[in-house]
């Protein structure tokens, strides 16, 4: 009897290291075309802000996001056609084109990110609830190491549309929430809705190509110790890309690490980094994916050999200190 009860408890447990089906859906493109209004709320300390977006999607990979201003005017439009992205600023009538893969220059694939997500996080199934007229399955994603942000998703199991997302920072405070407020399935999208031609840009530009460092050997050729090349960090972070930047005539190296849900950046500079803290930098829109968080919740500056380092990520100071000790 006791054994049966124990088995029932285990089977009924909502915690699992395995990826639940709703999460699998959320990690893929939605199954149907839709148009929706989305409200994105962000919290900075005691303050909050709200941004409205209009989102349009057409399978398999056409996205359009319009960021709407307080008077209903469009502040920014992003169109994505597979890996090609166009960003339009109506105020300056400027259109920027970029190939996301070329700009990112990371080594981790979508498959890698999923594997990291499964390895570093546990999943809890939440009670279903109604959002925008649909019944949504809820999943809470929590780091196994107990460090870093948590994420909660509500996904429509029939369409694969993520109806609500909530992000909690390393302190456990809610920092962002987005939810679909008005959803129309299979709408009649106009032909030029996903075309940059329809935006009427006066000026066109391409994002500058970034300089990627491939390995420790190449890092040494730039005058940096090869021992600074660290493929892994504590808390499940894996090296995705190393970029060489020029900031104020100084050569800076940016090491980007991903753990499946959030990103930690380590910058290496020959001159010190400003040590005083600044307000969290966030952006007003929200990506179509959720496997990497841009939330820069904490900063730690430290010396690494003859260089100066700064670690930025949504982690506690204790966790960032542990990361800093990896660098000689």
């Amino acid at each position: 009897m006791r054994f049966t009860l124990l088995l029932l408890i285990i089977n009924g447990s909502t915690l699992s290291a395995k990826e639940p089906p709703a999460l699998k859906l959320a990690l893929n493109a939605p199954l149907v075309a839709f148009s929706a209004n989305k409200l994105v709320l962000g919290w900075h300390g005691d303050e909050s802000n709200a941004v409205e977006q209009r989102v349009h999607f057409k399978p398999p990979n056409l996205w359009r996001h319009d960021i709407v201003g307080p008077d209903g005017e469009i502040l920014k439009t992003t169109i994505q056609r597979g890996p090609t992205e166009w960003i339009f600023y109506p105020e300056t009538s400027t259109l920027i084109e970029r190939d996301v893969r070329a700009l990112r220059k990371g080594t981790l694939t979508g498959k890698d990110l999923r594997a990291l997500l499964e390895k570093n996080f546990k999943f809890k199934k939440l009670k279903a609830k109604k959002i925008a007229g649909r019944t949504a399955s809820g999943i809470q994603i929590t780091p196994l190491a107990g460090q870093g942000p948590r994420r909660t998703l509500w996904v429509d199991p029939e369409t694969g549309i993520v109806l609500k997302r909530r992000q909690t920072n390393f302190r456990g405070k809610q920092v962002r929430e987005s939810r679909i407020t008005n959803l129309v399935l299979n709408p009649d999208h106009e032909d030029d809705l996903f075309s940059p031609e329809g935006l009427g840009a006066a000026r066109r530009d391409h994002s500058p190509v970034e300089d990627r460092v491939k390995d420790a050997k190449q890092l040494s050729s730039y005058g940096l110790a090869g021992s600074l090349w660290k493929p892994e960090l504590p808390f499940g972070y894996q090296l995705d890309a190393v970029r060489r930047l020029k900031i104020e005539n100084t050569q800076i190296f940016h090491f980007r690490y991903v753990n499946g849900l959030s990103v930690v950046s380590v910058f290496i500079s020959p001159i010190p980094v400003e040590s005083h803290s600044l307000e969290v930098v966030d952006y007003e829109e929200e990506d179509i994916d959720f496997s990497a968080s841009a939330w820069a919740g904490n900063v730690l500056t430290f010396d690494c050999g003859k260089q100066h380092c700064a670690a930025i990520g949504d982690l506690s100071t204790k966790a960032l200190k542990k990361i800093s000790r990896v660098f000689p």
Partner: protein
Amino acid sequence: MDNNNELEPISQFVDGELTGQDRLGAAERIYKFSETRESWIAFERGKAALEAAPHPMPAKLRDRIAAQHDSPASNSFLDLLQTPRMGWAFAAASLLFAFASHTIPLERTSKSVSLARLLQEHTDATRKSSDIGRAIINAAPYQAAEPFSKTP
């Protein structure tokens, strides 16, 4: 729009006086325009310096400044400059400031890297990293001959 009108919202942003869409608009400008970002950094640095001041302002001095600020009949700053004593004092202060500006270098431009810029790089790179998710991994190969290549 003159320079003061552009700087005022940034000052209010730093002081936490903006809320809702005003705050968002200021943040958008800081993100988009490098000159606005520089102003923001300057205000942040000024605020940090004020907060780091070792002694609080004496209560009597604070009351006196508050009384002057609240007085509706007080002269404007420009009116004060027209008096000979204040005029000379202002000229001397300007000379001192000009001398100091040329001899004391600003710390960040020569000795340190802007943390705000690193935060921006972190955020932007993170966005690019996340873009490999949902639809991108199912994407058709990038075709350079798509409509955009018809550049005027």
